């Protein structure tokens, strides 16, 4: 893996419009039963603009940032040897339907450990007003070729 990736900031992703039905579909897929995830009226009564996305929904927007990283020609990343090692989300506020979200991915660390390479990618996700919503941090492990 190219050590010079460390510190690289990728350009903002194309804005992602969070749809109400997408939130519901994702909620069903992660076995989320809260009315806040499914019922717009319940979400509004609780003070949200629309249905609330489950905490891990941010992975869908993070994915667009990771796609830019994996498509870069000089990373030395072999996708077939990549394993998802760790994942974290730090929220300023929950994602709700109607949000238009943009992701900016930064490679914060590249390490070699026991023949494997580890890359930490931090994806800052903001709304249309430029306000921070969530930062998604992924540690990807590229297994050594032995």
């Amino acid at each position: 893996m190219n050590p010079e990736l460390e510190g690289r900031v990728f350009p903002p992703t194309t804005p992602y419009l969070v749809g109400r039905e997408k939130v519901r579909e994702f909620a069903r897929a992660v076995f989320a039963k809260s009315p806040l995830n499914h019922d717009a009226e319940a979400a509004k009564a609780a003070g949200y603009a629309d249905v609330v996305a489950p905490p891990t929904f941010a992975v869908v927007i993070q994915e667009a940032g990771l796609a830019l990283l994996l498509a870069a020609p000089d990373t030395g990343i072999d996708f077939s040897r990549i394993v998802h090692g760790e994942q974290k989300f730090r929220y300023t506020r929950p994602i709700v339907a109607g949000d238009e979200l943009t992701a900016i991915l930064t490679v914060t660390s590249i390490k070699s450990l026991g023949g494997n390479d580890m890359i930490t990618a931090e994806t800052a996700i903001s709304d249309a007003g430029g306000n921070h919503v969530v930062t998604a941090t992924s540690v990807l492990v590229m297994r050594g070729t032995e």
Partner: protein
Amino acid sequence: MSDLTVGQELITGNVTLTRFSLVRYAGASGDFNPIHYRDDVAKSVGLPGVLAHGMLTMGLAVQPVIDWMDGRGEVVEYGVRFTRPVVVDGNGGITVSVSAKVGAIEDDVTRIDLTVSAANQTVLGKSQVRVKLHQ
């Protein structure tokens, strides 16, 4: 909610994952890696079988906490390590078990530690949810 104590068990939950669950998650998340639904591809890359998406396990594991909060708070941070793959049998599927207990109380943030296991083995490590509970 203010009388929580560190170490207190909050809630447990069980989810049975089948191949249907994996295909549904693939569609919802956009992660169509075939190791999550094709036995032949999983085998060809040396896996013990079709695996659940790590993000599916992570996504379902936090749900008992959401249910426990019942709208009385929000998740401000959630992180896990993917320590062991969840192999999903084509016939019976597999049951993922989650238990949640209070790990720490830090001012207005409560850390909830999850234990997530399948087939009697822990599958997520350092699985922690930080929640802010409404006063």
